[in-house]
């Protein structure tokens, strides 16, 4: 099982990850044509500003994910093997129940399409676009032992522990 690890002190808030994510989730997957697409491509990663640090944040693919339990249409589900939380756009009705419950605030809305959007870990890539694009290596994709639950939790919320 792989997780995206975030190292707060390395982030310089350059937002390369945001751009890379939007491009990877565009029709063309090319920066220059993506800019002109309608609807405009939407990033599923966010650079957050804190009191002392900036840091990038995308879906943590939580164990016992609150968004999945909140989903009233069956659009969100969790793959038991990979642990990834998947979102099926054509089942989503944009009801916002998941947005109301996600403790990380990483589900975003595409208001024209009436759906939410979230990190899908870039299924077409070996390394997710955000991780690959980060110039300071603030993010890395790391193998986490499947059975080490505690360890996994640490990775999920790793930015919290570092903070306090």
């Amino acid at each position, binding site marked *: 099982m792989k997780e995206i690890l975030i190292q707060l002190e390395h982030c310089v808030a350059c937002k390369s990850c945001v751009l890379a994510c939007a491009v990877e989730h565009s029709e063309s997957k090319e920066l220059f044509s993506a800019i002109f697409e309608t609807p405009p491509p939407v990033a599923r990663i*966010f650079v*957050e*500003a*804190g*009191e002392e640090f900036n840091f990038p*944040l995308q879906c943590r693919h939580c164990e016992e994910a*609150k968004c999945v*339990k*909140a989903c*009233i*249409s*069956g659009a969100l589900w969790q793959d038991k093997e990979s642990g990834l939380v998947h979102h099926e756009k054509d*089942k989503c*009705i*944009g*009801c*916002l*129940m*998941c*947005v*109301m*419950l*996600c*403790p*990380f*605030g*990483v*589900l*975003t*809305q595409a*208001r024209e399409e*009436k759906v939410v959007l979230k990190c899908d870990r870039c299924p077409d890539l070996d390394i997710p676009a955000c991780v690959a694009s980060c110039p300071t290596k603030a993010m890395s994709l790391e193998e986490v032992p499947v059975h080490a639950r505690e360890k996994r939790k640490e990775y999920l919320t790793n*930015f*919290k522990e570092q*903070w*306090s």
Partner: protein
Amino acid sequence: MSYAKYAIIGGGPAAFSAIDTINKFDKQEEIALIGAENHLPYYRPLMPNYLAGWTAREKLYMRPEDFYARSNVRFINGKAIQVNGRHNLLTYEKSENDVKAPAEEELKFEKLLLATGADPVQPNIPGLENPGTYFLRTINDADNIGRRAREAKRAVMLGGGLVSLKTAQALQALGLEVVLIISSNRVFSQMLDWQGGELLAHHLKKEGIKIFFQNEADFIHSNRSGVKKVTLADGQELEAEMVVVGKGVEPAVSFLEGSDVEFAEGIPVNEKLQTNLPHVYAAGDVTLTQDLLFNKPALHPFWPKATDQGAVAGANMAGKELTYSGCMAMNATEIFGLPVIAAGLAWAEKEEDFPGEIYRPLYLDSPPSYTKIVLKDDRLVGYIIIGENRKAGILTNLIMSQQLLSPYRKNRLINGEVVYL
């Protein structure tokens, strides 16, 4: 009489969350699922979308047909009419389609889950029994409303909650003129304060929905083809061919009448979701559970509570101890393109009525936007966000955890900005 180690009465999210959890801990044993609706279980909240034609029927079902055999679930289409908990027995009436079998059957179980959900509240309005009046809770309701809507031109909706608003939107999409009759002074009065209600009502009116506040239906007039006209409390008469009632729900507990399972307005449960009988559990809309903000038992009929409770009940039934700490009022929706989320003591109006601090860092007519933050002792106890809302969940979880806000975080929050720590 048949036997299953686990019996579940229901067929909504509480039941399925319990099934998944039981399967995780005790895969070998059979689960008998008794459901009164003559459909495989489906996503109830999709009913307005289904009615409007935005969600196809085959997208409604909670699980594929082969799920049941795979998961050791025997789905029994019937209505439980009696529970004899001390003797581990329940009686159900088989559904009418099943003419060959005897009308009543008994089931013996070791562990029972009551996940019967809720039924629409039936207001006492003369004429409500006539053809052309509806509730929206089930697929059958949606099909009936859809059929009538094909012929009707005007609909009167009673109630201003989430189900009414979504149904109003669906009926309008089907080409009907829709009038909402709301007894309180605002829409969504369970969740929104006056200002939030104003903003939302303005948006609905702009989309063509008519609203009468502080008014009621006094009489529903019908002729041979059904509803014709509604007389309101203030004497006005509204012509309409259909009436849809959305005045909230109440726990479906009537089948427990005369049983040894205790119930009040809902079924009281402990932290393990046990009823007064330790091997009989309850989960979902049917339960009375601890309200985290008011510290007393309350009904919170909404989806995430049903899935959470189903999982906890299922685990305990299968011998794995888990506890459920409680719940609070919250709701989210998108209506005519406008996102609305509210949680906790969102409706608190004035600081005088409430021992805390209320901030409204954002209030805009166009595009409709509103942020309200309610604090008590430097902890978040409620919020409303109308409009952009990605980080609403952070706020919900701050209320649930009752975490003390750092001065920095509080300061940003009362200025309408959500920061992580």
